[in-house]
C-alpha cells in the first residue's frame, strides 16, 4: 500500500512539471479578452433570485462587452474557496462571488491573489470573524435593500389604512429566508414604512430557513394568512415563490423580491427590486474600462439599483403618489429606513 501511495505522489509530481509552464497568466486566450468567473452560492443558478440575476448581468456583459464569462455552481459551502481559487488561479481578471455567505472565502482567496479583481454581491472580503479586510482588489457590491422594502411596505400600509385590503385586518406579513442581514434589511424597511403609513398595522415576520424550496415558504405564508395577514412580502429567493402562490390561493396580495416577479403569481401587486444584474454588470464594466476600485460600492435608489415595480394591480393614484414621494425622500436623504428590523 505504501508503495502505491508513493507511486501516486510521483505521478502527481510529473503532472505538476507539465503544468508548471502555464503559471498564473493565460497564454491560451488573446491578450485583450477579459475573463470573468462567477461562483454562485449554494442556491444555484436557477434560484430565481440573485444567483440568477447575477448570471443575467454576466450574460449582458458577455453580449455587450465581449468578455469571456464562466460559471461554477457551488453545491455546498465547502466549495466556495476551491471554486473561487479555481478561477483566480487560472488568471481570470474578475472573480465574482455571489452572496453574503461567501464573504470569508472571498477574503481568503482575494488575499492570495492580489492581482486578480474580486467582487462580491451582498458582502465584502472578510476574515473568519466577518471583519472586513478592506482588500484593495475586492469590490463590495452592497445594496440598501431596506429602501426597496420600505417602498412596498408603504404600499401595504397605505392600502390597509385606506381599507383596500381584502378584509382590512391591518395585518401584513413578511416571509424571510434565513435571518441574515440582506434579508432583514428588506424586512426592516417593510415594517418601518408600513407602520409609518398605518400605525395600527401588525407585521408578522417569519422565516422559512431556506432560499430555494417553495414548499417551506408556502407553509409559512399560509400560517401568516391564517393569522389574518393580507399582504405577504417574500424575501426568500426561490423559496419565496411558494409564499406568493400561497397568497394567490388565499386571495390575498403579495410582493415579489429582487426581480420583477409579476409572472410568478397574479397576487403579486408589486416587487421590491434589487438589481444584482446591474451591480454585476457595473462591476465587470469597471474592470473592462480599467476603472476597477476596491471597497464598498453601495447600490441604492441613488443609482437606480433599488426600487419597486408595479405588477398585477391597479394601484390607486394617491397610494402611488405616496410611495413615490417616499422614494424621493429616501433618495434625498430626508428619510432613512432602518437596516435592522424595528421592534
Amino acid at each position, binding site marked *: 500500500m505504501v508503495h502505491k501511495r508513493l507511486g501516486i505522489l510521483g505521478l*502527481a509530481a510529473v503532472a505538476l512539471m507539465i503544468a508548471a509552464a502555464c503559471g498564473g497568466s493565460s497564454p491560451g486566450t488573446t491578450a485583450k479578452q477579459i475573463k470573468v468567473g462567477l461562483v454562485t452560492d449554494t442556491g444555484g443558478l436557477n434560484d430565481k433570485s440573485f444567483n440568477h440575476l447575477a448570471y443575467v448581468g454576466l450574460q449582458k456583459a458577455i453580449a455587450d462587452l465581449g468578455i469571456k464569462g464562466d460559471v461554477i455552481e457551488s453545491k455546498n459551502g*465547502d466549495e466556495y474557496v476551491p471554486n473561487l481559487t479555481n478561477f483566480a488561479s487560472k488568471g481570470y481578471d474578475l472573480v465574482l462571488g455571489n452572496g453574503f455567505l461567501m464573504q470569508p472565502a472571498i477574503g481568503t482567496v482575494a488575499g*492570495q491573489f492580489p492581482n486578480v479583481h474580486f467582487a462580491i454581491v451582498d458582502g465584502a472580503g472578510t476574515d473568519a470573524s466577518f471583519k472586513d479586510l478592506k482588500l484593495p482588489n475586492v469590490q463590495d457590491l452592497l445594496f440598501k435593500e431596506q429602501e426597496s422594502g420600505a417602498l412596498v411596505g408603504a404600499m401595504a400600509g397605505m392600502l390597509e389604512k385606506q381599507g383596500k385590503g381584502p378584509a382590512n385586518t391591518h395585518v401584513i406579513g413578511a416571509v424571510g429566508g434565513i435571518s441574515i442581514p440582506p434579508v432583514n434589511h428588506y424586512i426592516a424597511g417593510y415594517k418601518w414604512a408600513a407602520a409609518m403609513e398605518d400605525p395600527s398595522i401588525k407585521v408578522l415576520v417569519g422565516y422559512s430557513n431556506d432560499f430555494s424550496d417553495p414548499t417551506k415558504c408556502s407553509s409559512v405564508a399560509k400560517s401568516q394568512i391564517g393569522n389574518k395577514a393580507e399582504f405577504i412580502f417574500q424575501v426568500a429567493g426561490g423559496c419565496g415563490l411558494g409564499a406568493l402562490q400561497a397568497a394567490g390561493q388565499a386571495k390575498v396580495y403579495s410582493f415579489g423580491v429582487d426581480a420583477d416577479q409579476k409572472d410568478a403569481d397574479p397576487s403579486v401587486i408589486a416587487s421590491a427590486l434589487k438589481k444584482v444584474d446591474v451591480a454585476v454588470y457595473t462591476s465587470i464594466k469597471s474592470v473592462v474600462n480599467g476603472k476597477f476600485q476596491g471597497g464598498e460600492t453601495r447600490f441604492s435608489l441613488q443609482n437606480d439599483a433599488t426600487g419597486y415595480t408595479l405588477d398585477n394591480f391597479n394601484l390607486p393614484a394617491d397610494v402611488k403618489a405616496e410611495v413615490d414621494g417616499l422614494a424621493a425622500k429616501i433618495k434625498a436623504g430626508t428619510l432613512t429606513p432602518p437596516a435592522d428590523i424595528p421592534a
Partner: protein
Amino acid sequence: MAIAGADPLAAYQGLLCGGLGALCGGCENPALQISNTIVFVTPLITTGIAVALPFRAGLFNIGAEGQLLAGAVTYTVIGIKLGNGPAPVVIPVALIGGMLAGSLWAGIAGVLKALVGAHEVVTTIMLNYVAQWLVRFLIIGGPLQAPNGFSASPPTGPGARLPTLLPHDNSLIIFGLPSSVYRVHTGLFIALAAAALFAFLLWRTSLGYEIRAVGQSQRAARYAGVDVRRTIIVTMLIAGAFSGLAGAIQIAGVDHGLTDKYFSDTTGFDAIAVALLGLGSATGIILASILLGALHAGGAVMQSDAGISANLVLVLQALILFSIAANFVGAIRRLLPFGRKPAALPPDLPPAAGLMSESATPTVQT
C-alpha cells in the same frame, strides 16, 4: 457524457484534473486540484469509518452527519474558549471533545437500540435533524452567534487551528501559486491514522472480533460470551467518535468556526456511499473517499472547463454504486491475479438483510 451535449473529452479531462490533478489543461493547476481533493477526502475517511463500523455489527448508522455536527459544534466551543492557549494542548483537547460529542450523539441511538430495540435507522435520522436544527439555533440568534448578525460563530482562536502542510503564506509561491491556496492540512494524517486504528480495531482486537460476530450472528455471539447489548452501544460510541472527529477536523483544519455551510453539509451522507463502496475495509474506505472526493472536486473543474453541470458527478457516483451493488468489483477482482483476501468481499459485509431484519434487533434475554 456524450448525451450531455458538450465535448466529452473535455469533460473527462476536467473531471480527472479536478479530481486527481492529472491531465490538466486550460491552465488548471494540478497541485491545487490535488490539494482541494485531499481537503474533501479527509472528513470522508473518518465519517466513512463511522458508517462502516456499525455496518460490521449489523447496524445502519445514517446518523454520521448529526454526529459530525456534534463534533464540529463541540470543537468550535472549545476552540473559542481555549483558542488562545498553546496548540499542542488545545488541539488534542478540542479534538477529544469533538469525538466525545460525536460519541454521545451516536450513543443515544446505540442505547435506544440496545435497551428498547428502537431501530437505529429511525433514531439516527432523528438525531441528524436535531443536530442540524441545533446548529442553526446556535449560530442564528443563539448563544454561539458572532456579535455581528452573521450566521456564523466567532472564529476559533489560533491555538485551535491545525497547521496546513505548506506554510500559510500569501507571498510564498509554490507550484506557481501562493502557498496559502493549498489548504491541505495535517488533519489528513489524523484521518489516515484513524483508518489504521479502525483496521486494527476490527481485525486485530477481541472487540473487533466481537463486533463482527454480533453483526453476523447475535446468537452465536451470545453463546461466545459476548454481551450483545454492550457491544451495540460500544460500537455506536466508537462510530460516533470517528464522525465527531471528522467534524472537529473540519473546524480545526478548514473552517475555524461554525458557519452556515453546516446547514447544508452532506459529508455524513456521502459517508454512506464511501462505506458501501469501500466494502467496509479501511483501505477500501480510503480509496472510496479518494474517489468521491475526486469526483466532488472534479465536478467543479468539469463545469468551468467543459461547461457541464457539476451534478453529473452525482450520476457517475450512483452508477458506481450500482455496479458495487451488482458486485462487478468482486467479479473484476476475482479476475485479477493479485485479487487477494476474497473473504473480505461483500459476502463478509452484512447485507441489507442483516441491517433491516430481526438479526439486527437484540432479543430480550430473560
